[in-house]
């Protein structure tokens, strides 16, 4: 990798403050490549898992290998890909949006290496077979302590990132009093703030329950408490993963489409709603659990219904932004503007495909969260389909699009052709639909999750066989798309095309750029207070009950 790319300011904003070199370039590239490496491994394992569950004979198919693979797949996707990508993207936006050097770069590098150490620890633990507990932390089944310590290190690295993001925004605000924080940075910091709240649950569970159990310091564990603490994290973590996608919807898509963001205010409100409503809703993951009462399950179901608000608002705001762009490009009529959108641009295409997948994934989610209705689908392939559509369909496809935006800036080279990029996105979409639609169908018939193989001699299970093979084909398409993604980025690194001297990061402007904003739309003080109150109301008693009337504990079952 040769010279640093140069940036020029977006039109109508203050001049760049540094010499124009992107100081975080190496940091971002390092983070994103770690994320992609984990992603590629996880995709290939995923294909093998589908194969193993199908009626076809899969190589090396043993139960031990299957659960090792599922654990690796989940950890790589959910913890490594996401955390490293989000950190890398955050450093990128902090410098390019604020046009200031990111404070504490040495600290960021320290966090990076801490995270790498954690990933290696966890990976070796999984490969050794002593951590085949899947990526969820549900004692009494307890992995080797290296697994948990490794993942704690990844979380600690992300905390460092959060603090750097918050500090960067604060420093910018003091230097620019009265001005609106650029939406992209506001959203990035919103994610950092939310993530700090989110990790309180899992960190408490790991530090006070799971790690002592894995070390043999306690032979018993309060299972209900551990599940409750994990649920604290389990829903909001998905929004942590989703934030970059929404950031791209609001701050990259409208520009890529050739228009403007319809409303900056609604963007800020959506991100704020994510902070406050993604946390006090985790009990909907425990709707089928005996340790919580109907009343609290209902309360959190109700709050979960409200977390659909920011997503539905986003659908409208982004569609309206697309309409503005389409009309600016000559589209007319009620639907004519759709045709005139530049679908050949990866960011535009990815957003369109992401919305289509979000339709299915979000629709499935509305059914999952509906209180007693969850019983119809809980722990069936339906749920697997739901979160693959959300994660793979909305999160990851936008990570692709973001990488395609960042890479020219980072390498100083432009993609010679958009065709391989768009082919890759289409393959991902097709693969995801082919894989997950059969899962919905078999899930409704009761096909359950997390097993290493099906007994196809049973007539009911045999009737699922063809559908499992269809979803295996979807998985293969996804893996091809993943490899093409890697190839696309690699070619840009290796390309001999001349580097351009100036690179502009294409952040969208709003139709009405924000002037002086209310403090609540330009910071997080108020929202932190509200989160604290909401968490107290929604989780206070559900956690306190384990201390008021302690339930019998279970014997720890260690895997080492």
């Amino acid at each position, binding site marked *: 990798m040769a010279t640093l790319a140069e940036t020029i300011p977006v039109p109508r904003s203050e001049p760049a403050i540094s010499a124009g070199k992107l100081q975080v370039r190496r940091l971002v590239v390092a983070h994103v490549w770690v994320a992609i490496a984990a992603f590629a491994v996880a995709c290939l394992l995923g294909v093998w898992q589908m194969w193993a569950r199908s009626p076809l004979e899969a190589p090396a198919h043993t139960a031990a290998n299957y659960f090792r693979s599922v654990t690796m797949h989940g950890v790589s996707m959910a913890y490594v890909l996401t955390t490293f990508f989000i950190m890398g993207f955050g450093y990128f936006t902090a410098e390019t949006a604020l046009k200031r050097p990111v404070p504490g770069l040495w600290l960021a590098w320290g966090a990076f290496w801490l995270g790498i150490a954690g990933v290696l620890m966890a990976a070796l633990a999984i490969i050794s077979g002593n951590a085949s507990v899947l990526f969820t932390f549900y004692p009494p089944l307890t992995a080797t302590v290296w697994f948990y310590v490794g993942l704690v290190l990844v979380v600690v690295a992300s905390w460092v990132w959060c603090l750097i993001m918050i500090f960067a925004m604060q420093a910018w605000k003091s230097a620019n009093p009265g001005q609106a924080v650029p939406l992209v940075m506001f959203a990035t910091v919103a994610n950092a703030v939310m993530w700090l709240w989110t990790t309180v649950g899992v960190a408490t569970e790991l530090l006070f329950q799971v790690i002592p159990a894995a070390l*043999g310091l306690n*032979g018993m564990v309060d299972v209900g408490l551990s599940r409750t603490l994990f649920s604290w994290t389990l829903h909001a973590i998905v929004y942590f993963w989703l934030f970059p996608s929404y950031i791209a919807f609001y701050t990259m898509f409208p520009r890529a489409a050739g228009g403007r963001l319809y409303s900056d205010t609604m963007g800020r409100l959506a991100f704020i709603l994510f902070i406050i409503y993604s946390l006090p809703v985790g009990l909907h993951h425990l709707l089928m659990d005996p340790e919580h009462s109907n009343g609290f399950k209902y*309360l959190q179901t*109700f709050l979960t219904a409200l977390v659909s608000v920011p997503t539905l608002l986003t659908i409208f705001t982004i569609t309206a932004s697309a309409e503005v762009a389409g009309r600016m490009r000559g589209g007319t009529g009620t639907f004519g503007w759709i045709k005139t959108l530049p679908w050949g641009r990866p960011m535009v295409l990815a957003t369109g495909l992401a919305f289509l997948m979000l339709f299915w994934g979000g629709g499935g989610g509305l059914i999952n969260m509906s209180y007693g209705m969850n019983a119809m689908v809980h722990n069936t392939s339906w749920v697997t389909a739901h979160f693959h559509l959300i994660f793979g369909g909305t999160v990851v496809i936008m990570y692709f699009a973001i990488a395609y935006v960042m890479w020219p800036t980072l390498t100083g080279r432009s993609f010679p052709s958009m065709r391989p990029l768009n082919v890759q996105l289409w393959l991902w979409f097709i693969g995801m639909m082919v894989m997950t639609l059969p899962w919905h169908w078999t899930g409704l018939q009761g096909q359950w999750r997390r097993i290493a193989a*099906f*007994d196809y*001699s049973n007539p009911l299970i045999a009737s699922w066989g063809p559908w499992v093979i269809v979803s295996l084909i979807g998985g293969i398409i996804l893996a091809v798309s993943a490899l093409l993604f890697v190839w696309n980025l690699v070619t840009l690194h290796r390309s001999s095309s001349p580097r351009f001297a100036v690179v502009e990061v294409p952040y969208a402007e709003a139709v009405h750029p924000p002037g002086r904003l209310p403090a609540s739309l330009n910071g997080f003080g108020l929202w932190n207070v*509200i989160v604290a109150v909401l968490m107290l109301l929604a989780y206070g008693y559900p956690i306190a*009950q384990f201390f008021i009337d302690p339930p019998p504990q279970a014997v720890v079952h260690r895997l080492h």
Partner: protein
Amino acid sequence: MAEHPPSDQTPAGAPAEQAAVDRHWRRLALAAVGVAVAVGGLLGFVIIPAGQREHSHLSMDAAMRRAAGLEAGSPAHPQPPAAINSLPVSQVSWDPAIMQRLAAGNTARGAELAGQVCAACHGETGLSVTSAIPSLAGQTSYAIYKQLHDFRTGARVQPDMTAVAQSLAVGDLASIAAYYAAASQQYAALGMRDLSGETEIVRVAWEGDTRRRIPACMSCHTNGVGGPIETPALLGQNREYMAAQLNAYASGARKNDVYGRMRDISRRLTPHEREQLARYFQGTL
């Protein structure tokens, strides 16, 4: 064109004015969140139990207590009576005192008792003298204690062991179990024996048979795999002993396995499989 850029339309201006805008936003946000929680809480803690209690014949108070988790049961259904008595198959209890004792490991008392009472048959280090007597090497203290305790209470019957176990206090059983678990650690090589068997037997041992609902032997019977803590390890165990136990489980002659797990599994195995599994797990040095 006058609207672009309309920065003067967003709340702006003097700090005093700004403070009023901020206050407005704060109130609005708190009110919205407050209403959401109040509605959700009212529906969940009051309306639903009120609507459901007719079916369960509960008082409003009891239905609301159930909705809030202050008493067991659903607001919509009567709670079945919990206590119906019948006799347990094993009296072993993993209460914290015993767990602590087992975890405490080797003690002088355990070594002394083992030497006096056990070693003649089971060996100083847990390698037994004949194939009909189980080796204790490689077993966890939980596994050994479970069987000693069952001999003592009569849950498992074998005249020699019953006599031995009944002559010792429960605490001594734990000490002996802890002694053998520690003494046999150097015999980890037991697990390094060569294993060989028919393909189908190896499959049952490592992968089980889903069609017959037989879990793999090794999904429980090896230490550190996360199975029930009292499960004995099989690798290197004596063939004759293992075959006799599997057959005793299958016939129901032995029934101190909690919830009949081994009785069920042994019955699903054919006599040939039981014999061959015992041979397979003994292995060769």
